[in-house]
């Protein structure tokens, strides 16, 4: 099943509230990915995000679900800033995985 989350509606025009990111991760992203569903985070209308917001949103799915998260989590309409932040979080989470004996 494919689920699209409208980030503008959930997090506003500038995504910085980590409480919202955490809630979304716990209540929507993790359960859906764990069931094998595909999640699409649609950033249409979101002008920017902080690194800590994106970290709170996706670091745990990457850490806990690894390939399931890489395969089933996708990002739509992310502008260059948001793409860069998501890419940074992807890189450092993967860098850190085997450093914690989790590979």
């Amino acid at each position, binding site marked *: 099943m494919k689920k699209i989350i409208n980030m503008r509606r959930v997090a*506003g*025009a*500038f995504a*910085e*509230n*980590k*409480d*919202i990111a*955490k809630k979304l*991760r716990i209540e929507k992203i993790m359960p859906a990915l764990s069931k094998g569903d595909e999640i699409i985070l649609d950033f249409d209308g979101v*002008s*920017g995000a*902080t*690194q*800590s*917001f994106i*970290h*709170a949103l996706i*670091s*745990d799915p990457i*850490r806990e679900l690894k390939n399931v998260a890489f395969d089933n989590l996708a990002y739509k309409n992310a*502008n*260059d*800033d948001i*793409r*860069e*932040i998501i*890419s*940074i*979080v992807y*890189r*450092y*989470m993967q*860098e*850190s*995985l*085997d*450093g*914690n004996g989790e590979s």
Partner: protein
Amino acid sequence: MRVHFSNQGNLRNFKSFVASLDLSHPEKLEISTHNKWVTVHPANLVVAAALAIQAGKKNTEIIGEVPETGRYLDRMGLYDLVKTASPFVYHRKEEAGRFVPIKIIKTAEDQSRFITDMIPLLHLSEKNTIVVKYIIGELVRNVLEHSFTENGAIVAAQYYKKTNRVSIGICDNGIGIWKSLNTFWHPKNDIDALKLALTPGITGTTRKEGGTAENAGAGLFFIKSIAKITRSYFVIYSGSAEYTLLKHDKRIKGSPRLYADPNRDPHSETNKVPSFQGTLVAVDISLDETHELNELLASIGEVYDKAIRERKREKYRKPRFI
């Protein structure tokens, strides 16, 4: 306590401002100014505001002769936090400057409202607005999450047309950086704690690489790096320690090089200033030097990755050569 606003209130001189603070007798605060001319950076202002909130309005006053330029203190809302009545009279609609007066942010919802409603007061281009929102978003969140203060984050900002820069100050009177990091990192002293806090991947919530689900230990490193790339000042003050990232020399061509280790950046530091219960972070962003945020983040992200990779490698088992 005593705070003095001189005629040289900028981040380059922030150490002198801090050194002049008298933080004894926290139940009372006196604020004085230079008698002819006063210049105040948002950093100085939010420190004074944090101390005023700590002492309480009825125990805080502005003493001595305040020059005409002291009108700025009123415009930025400092008189609202003291028992002294403002000597300045003007119509609110006259103050169409590009500034964000002292604002206290206590919740994540306050923060979102502030970012939506207040940052536009600086009237910046969309590109620069995003950078300022990013910086304030990260720094205020740090306060709400790690400072354990009931008084919230105290924020002020100012756009300076002459130098085309935005200056931001964010302060709290919470537990301070040393205490925030002590559970997992045991910094030796306050300056050690500040430098740890500026190091990529160091968070007060874990020793694990990659951080926790909520914290990566990236925020302060990213902000300091934005300041460095835009050839601007960055200051952090907590406990008895103060660290100033010095402005990168404009005569040196090319983008300033980023380092994971704050000791490698051109900076001044001290561990002997009056001990402040809380944390101040301030930054100047030179808008002449501002790149697109994604370009800034790409450069910063590379250094961040490298730092995580190197630290991870330090944990690898080494071969036993006999």
